[in-house]
């Protein structure tokens, strides 16, 4: 796991709105190794989905302000939708947040699959056998292809989406909140399928976006935490969970209820306050207003630096 698969450098992406630019991603720099599964966590609105989308395709209101994305040593033309088409699906694939509800309810799943493949210039016949093999692997009968999305349960739909999105063995898969709407047993099955697909080589590296740190703790090699459009910390999974260095990560981890923890014994506190507006983010460390350790120096922006091998933090106190 030493070769780098994805390298993101100085990435800035804004949303254009009537009231000005929302600075949803600001100077983001990190790498994902070949074979690495990276969890991406953080509060709602911190920019996780924006980061995922930026690796694949910017939508109409997104503006690529600065920075580069390299996949397998090749720079991705992320600002250029037409040229990105050559990479999407074959090289990088994103399972969007709400993918399940986004499936066209009036199209049979087989037909949808065929159209999707053909839009990528792949003939359905050439992958039919492999498709069936993979459906079996995730416990779906072949006849799902003749069914409509509404006829499948949440877990079945999500497994179908996973099979589809990895059919052409992309280098990188971005899975955005694929388990959030599911109950615990289905959630576990879906998460384990992701790991299994990586182990079988259907996909080489993965970014698993979620607000549930305990879920990525189960399956990820590393976890990256974002705060208000910036990176706060990235480290191997056990390090993030057992000895995080960024005050935000520390609060995030300690605010999670564990099985067995009871209000009567231990009142969890959450993180007081809320993140700053990204229309006009404050100068300096963006966590400053809520940070119990803030001091003078925090009015300057802390750089995202490697404090130990593979452990990056953006905090003056780390």
């Amino acid at each position, binding site marked *: 796991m030493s070769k780098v698969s994805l390298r993101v450098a100085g990435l800035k992406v804004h949303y254009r709105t009537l009231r000005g630019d929302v600075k949803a991603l600001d100077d983001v720099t990190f790498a994902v190794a070949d074979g690495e599964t990276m969890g991406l966590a953080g*509060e*709602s*609105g911190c920019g996780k989905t924006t980061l995922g989308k930026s690796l694949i395709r910017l939508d109409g209101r997104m503006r690529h302000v600065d920075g580069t994305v390299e996949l397998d040593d090749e720079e991705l033309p992320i600002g250029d939708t037409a040229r990105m088409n050559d990479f999407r699906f074959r090289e990088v694939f994103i399972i969007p947040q709400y993918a399940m509800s986004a499936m066209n309810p009036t199209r049979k799943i087989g037909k949808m699959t065929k159209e999707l493949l053909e839009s990528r210039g792949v003939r359905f016949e050439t992958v039919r056998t492999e498709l069936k093999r993979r459906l079996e692997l995730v416990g779906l009968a072949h006849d799902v292809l003749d069914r409509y999305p509404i006829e499948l*349960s*949440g877990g079945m739909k999500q497994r179908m989406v996973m099979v589809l999105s990895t059919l052409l063995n992309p280098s990188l898969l971005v899975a955005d909140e694929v388990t*959030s*709407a*599911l*109950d*615990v*047993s*289905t*959630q*576990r099955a879906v*998460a384990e399928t992701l790991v299994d697909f990586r182990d079988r080589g259907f996909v080489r590296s993965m970014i698993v976006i979620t*607000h*549930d*740190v*305990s*879920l990525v*703790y*189960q399956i990820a090699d590393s976890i990256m935490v974002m705060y208000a459009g910036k990176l706060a910390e990235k480290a191997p999974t056990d390090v993030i*969970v*057992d000895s995080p260095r960024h005050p935000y990560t520390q*609060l*995030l*981890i300690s*605010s*999670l*209820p*564990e*099985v*067995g*923890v*009871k*209000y009567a014994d231990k*009142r*969890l*506190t*959450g*993180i007081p306050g*809320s993140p700053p507006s990204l229309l006009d983010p404050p100068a300096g460390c963006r966590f400053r207003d809520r940070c119990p350790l803030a001091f003078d120096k925090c009015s300057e922006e802390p750089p995202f630096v490697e404090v130990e091998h593979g452990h990056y933090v953006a905090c003056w106190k780390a």
Partner: protein
Amino acid sequence: MATTSLAGKPEAERCCTVDRVSMVYKIGAFGGTDLPAVRDVSFEVRAGEVVSLIGESGSGKTTLGKMILRLCPITGETITVDGVDISTFKRRRLKTYYRSVQGVFQDPFSSYNPIFKADRVFSMIKDEYFAEVNAAEWRRKVAASLEAVRLSPDEVLNKYPHQLSGGQLQRILIARALLLDIRLLVADEIISMLDASTRIDVLNLLADLKAQGLGILFITHDLSLGNYVSDKTVILRRGRIVEMGAPDRVFGNPLHPYTKSLLTSVPQLHRKWERVEAELAAGRAGLTGRCIYHERYPNGDGPVGLDAERPTLAEAEDDHFVACFQADGEETC
């Protein structure tokens, strides 16, 4: 107090009793197929108690909540609140009922109309129940109930739903329920859309409300959150209760195979799935091939729980009940 309107005054603490209720949906073309969504369920929510109703999606949790809220017909036996049978309430009586029993649901966004300001949910309550209260007093009342859910009126009043976060919208709905002096709150998956920090705020709020004597039915598919505030845990599977009791017992010594399989799937920090599974397998060893229910009721053959004469749950230890280990409706053990 609005609650005095409920006649048949309660035994000191009793709040809501669900007694052997069932619900069958008619599905398929011409409603020709029966889908039993709730089967012979009994439990109790007392004043000042949080009861967590846990089960996977489709297990019948929402249907049960809707029965208590009378959004769904009550079939089988009955549901009583403060000793009064609610199943036959009609219009005027229902309106009084909703003064003391309210529900809050999963998706806060869907409870608001995007073209109106969010605080319209308050004025609707005023028109319905508090027409005689003057404007200044009403403002004070609203401010007080917003404070109870730790929102400041300036922060949330006069704003459209899209200008507020999910957690704020969810807390406004709870504040609305509190305006009514309720005795019982049905909270259906109210935190599953929220992120960790906001979840904790809402859970702590439930704990505060319970300390003030409110009975809460907390419906969730997330076991780690079910445990945090609850006094009693009810595990539902395919419309039936499979295990019920004090959270320490149900989580610390799960007996039913289904409860165990749910517990092994909860993603936990510091404990990976394999480890949890190994520990539970060790604990399960002594139960292999046994069924606590049928050891207690050896003659109880046939589908469990459809016969009102026979208990559907066996008491395995103090405050810990379990159904037949095969109780998934189709077969017996």
